[in-house]
């Protein structure tokens, strides 16, 4: 068949190709990029979801701008939606009603835009967690991690601003809280608020201003950052999970053209279909039910979009005990710390982590193979602690609903979160780290013994044992990919005369040594473990039992020739 003999390109394509190449000399570069390798793993699709939902946001957003009127001019509504006729409102709110009740497909586009925003931020978070837990942020990819953190931060700000534009009751209340947090800033708070809002809250300019930020400035920056994210990814190539043939030197996967392009295209349509499906059947942000914003009204049980939930929660549970007054000037810590400090901890911590980890471990090598999360127990534990911290704050943002649902006092829920926010992350850290270490032990055992076959054999001595079988080469490869975890700080501990080097004697040096110890101490060593060698880890009960060794040795097939094996057998014979 001629399938594999490349047919000549159709004349029209050759024409276009030649036209371009005559001007840009792109044949070689074009081929190289069409051959770009995409490693196959489901978790690599998370970032794709973010990209696709961003594209959907751009498309649906452009549609909405055709009718939306970002004006705070006060009018009395006289439009198609009967229930609000005669009600005073801003033109922004009225035009949102127009999109909903006069423009066919307008409601759909509004819901698509909102759902896509929620999914955009959600997929960013999950993608980020994947990169964190697999250590894909390590050298040489720290810059791309930082760009990712910037995208995440901007996406949240972009979401908050977009949420504020329709000028319905919850959206205005979100702005009010934002302004309240701004006011709390020492010295500059009132100025920042007056300049941003053009005077007092709510003023008459905030929506046009947020509109220009929301549809132009922030999307442009986001687009630039996303482009940079991709160019760096393209240049550095993807990380990959350990496996046969996958090494630090060579990336293995599906080529961009044709297979990945078609798969990714299909995935784009799936993402789009899910967002449109949600928009068709799950109502979101029904602003016509909320009514227009007035600064004097509120309804109980208001919930912000999910990604603002953790800030809402932190504002709810942070007490006023630390509010101070210096020479009569108020510093409302109860607003500053939860409103800005927690965000600083979250984004600052994320941004700093690659460098902190490299500093602690002294690891300066480039990494292309992703870590299995269990093989970095402290990092994984910290990640779990971070998720718990964030998750508890997020839940605390719904404490009134929780209190109502579970019929516990509102103040009790607040106290549960106030305590849980400290205890929860510690517990999550300990449990996660222990699970990781347990999985490491299990891995070492599998590596040495093969997998449990489920077959029970009886030994001549009457003892029952489970027969282990050799794992596949792929499994062995994956298990063997675990790096030994020793602190790699280069500073020599002591010179020839036994005097500690200044670097390790300094306070930072000591801190670093302690952190490195904490980071690596409990890790299970795989050093010297030979695949299917059988007995390296063997428990004392088997040592005196000759026949056991005989059976298992033959079962595992490798003849017990490794050093560790001999040692164990020797010990057995001595008894």
């Amino acid at each position, binding site marked *: 068949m001629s399938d594999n003999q490349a047919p000549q390109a159709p004349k029209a394509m050759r024409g276009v190709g030649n036209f371009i190449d005559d001007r840009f000399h792109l044949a070689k570069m074009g081929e190289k990029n069409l051959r770009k*390798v995409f490693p196959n793993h489901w978790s690599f699709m998370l970032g794709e979801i973010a990209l696709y939902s961003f594209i959907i946001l751009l498309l649906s957003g452009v549609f909405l701008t055709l009718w939306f009127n970002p004006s705070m001019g006060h009018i009395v509504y006289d439009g198609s*939606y009967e229930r609000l006729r005669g009600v005073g409102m801003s033109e922004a709110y009225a035009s949102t009603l127009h999109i909903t009740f006069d423009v066919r497909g307008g409601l759909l586009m509004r819901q698509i835009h909102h759902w896509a925003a929620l999914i955009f931020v959600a997929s960013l978070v999950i993608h980020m967690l994947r990169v964190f837990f697999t250590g894909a942020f390590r050298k040489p990819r720290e810059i791309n991690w930082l760009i990712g953190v910037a995208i995440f931060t901007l996406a949240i700000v972009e979401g908050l601003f977009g949420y504020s534009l329709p000028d319905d009751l919850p959206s205005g209340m979100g702005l009010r809280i934002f302004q309240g947090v701004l006011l709390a800033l020492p010295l500059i708070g009132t100025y920042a608020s007056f300049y941003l809002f053009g005077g007092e809250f709510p003023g008459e300019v905030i929506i046009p201003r947020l509109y220009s930020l929301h549809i132009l400035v922030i999307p442009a920056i986001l687009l630039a950052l996303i482009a940079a994210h991709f160019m760096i990814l393209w240049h550095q190539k993807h990380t990959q999970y350990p496996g046969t043939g996958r090494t*630090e030197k060579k990336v293995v996967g599906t080529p961009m053209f044709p297979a990945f392009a078609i798969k990714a295209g299909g995935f784009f349509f799936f993402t789009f279909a899910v967002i449109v499906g949600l928009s068709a059947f799950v109502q979101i942000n029904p602003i016509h039910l909320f009514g227009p914003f007035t600064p004097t009204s509120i309804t109980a049980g208001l919930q912000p979009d999910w990604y603002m939930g953790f800030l809402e929660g932190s504002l709810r549970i942070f007490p006023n005990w630390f509010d101070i007054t210096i020479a009569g000037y108020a510093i409302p810590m109860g607003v500053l710390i939860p409103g800005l400090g927690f965000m600083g901890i979250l984004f600052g911590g994320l941004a700093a982590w690659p460098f902190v980890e490299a500093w602690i471990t002294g690891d300066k090598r480039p990494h292309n193979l992703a870590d299995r999360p269990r093989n970095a127990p402290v990092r994984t534990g910290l990640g779990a602690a971070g998720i718990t911290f964030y998750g508890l704050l997020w839940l605390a943002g719904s404490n009134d609903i929780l209190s109502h649902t579970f019929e516990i006092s509102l103040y009790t829920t607040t106290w549960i979160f106030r305590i849980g926010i400290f205890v929860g992350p510690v517990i999550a850290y300990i449990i996660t780290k222990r699970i990781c270490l347990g999985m490491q032990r299990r891995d070492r055992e599998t590596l040495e013994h093969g997998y449990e076959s489920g077959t029970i054999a009886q030994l001549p001595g009457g003892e029952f044992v489970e027969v282990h079988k050799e794992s596949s080469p792929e499994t062995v490869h994956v298990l063997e990919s675990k790096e030994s975890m020793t602190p790699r700080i280069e500073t020599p501990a002591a010179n020839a005369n036994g005097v500690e080097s200044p670097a390790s004697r300094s306070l930072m040096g000591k801190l670093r040594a302690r952190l490195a110890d904490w980071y690596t101490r409990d890790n299970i060593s795989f050093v010297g473990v030979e695949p299917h060698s059988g007995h390296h880890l063997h428990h004392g009960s088997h040592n005196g039992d000759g026949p056991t060794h005989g059976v298992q040795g033959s079962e595992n097939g490798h003849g017990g020739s490794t050093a560790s094996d001999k040692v164990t057998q020797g010990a057995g014979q001595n008894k």
Partner: protein
Amino acid sequence: MTDNNTDNGNGNGSEEPRERVIGTPTGGGDALVAGKEEPHRKHEGPYLAEETHARPEETQIRGEKIAAVWFLIAFLAGVGFFVSYFSFAPNAANEPVIADPATAQLANALMGGTLALSLFAIGAGMTVWARQILPHYEVASPYDELPSPPKEKSSFSEFFMRSANESGFTKRPLMRRTLLLAMAPLGLAPIVLLRDTGPAPRDTLKSTLWEDGLHIVVEGTGRRIKAEDLSETGGMISALPEAHDGDHGLSLDDQAKTVILLIKMDPDDFGPQMNQQRLDWTHEGIIAYSKICTHVGCPAALYERTTHRILCPCHQSTFDASNGAEVVFGPAHRPLPQLPLRVDNEGYLVAAGDFSSPVGPTFWDAEVKN
């Protein structure tokens, strides 16, 4: 199949291209086995022969059919989208039929449902295409060696420094420094230009419209209030100052600062924070507080009459209305400002002055008296 290959030819001798090997699939099979000796010559596809694993022709034919069915479904759903769009056309009087919320929901479900189905079907068809027609294989590509070889690095650094020297930027400090100096005002200009985005705060936040003799009216109706209107102990009304020029005279800015809660309670319930001045500001157990929470500015709209507690639904700051609106729980720091009350000659409730302290979220100089 590769076994066959190695068994038969040792690679070096056979010049003639191998046609077929028994037992290999026909469709695309040639490439799979042919390229062992000289893959580059035999296979002109995108990848080396040993890297490709074509699907059996049978699978591909079935895949093509299934994908085509999905694409047809996508097409029909796409047509369905247009049908649902045009079936919600404005009525004869040119009024939109989707103005009715129920119809709007139906239109949304139909348009969204057909669109989602169309998108899903395209995705499904492409997935079938990828899984049943595209050959399955993985290819490898080397990662860049990091860092660049010392030779390249030193060559770059040498070139850069030589050129920088050549430019005179390093050698001519006067020029360099004056250029940097020249840039400074330009860099600051955009920031300075933002100055007129808003007025300076001055003391705007510390005073409101409320003044002695200004009538208190019910929020929403604009009706003046007499003390008897709050006859029932435990009653609560959300109120505003009377606008001088009709219904819409009060801007949102002013509403946000002046809105109050009027609460009637048994005067015996007043707590120790209610000093003589604060008691003077009440009228027959009627007390007025700012409705705007001192935490971050939500309306503290919930009132529990038995405990006299005012609760802000946003972050649950709780104030004791019987005790100067002291904070009893939650993140707020300052009590709600109290509005002095009295009645005028006709018995209507009026303000007796402005609030006892600045309204709304605490700002840095909120507690500084002028």
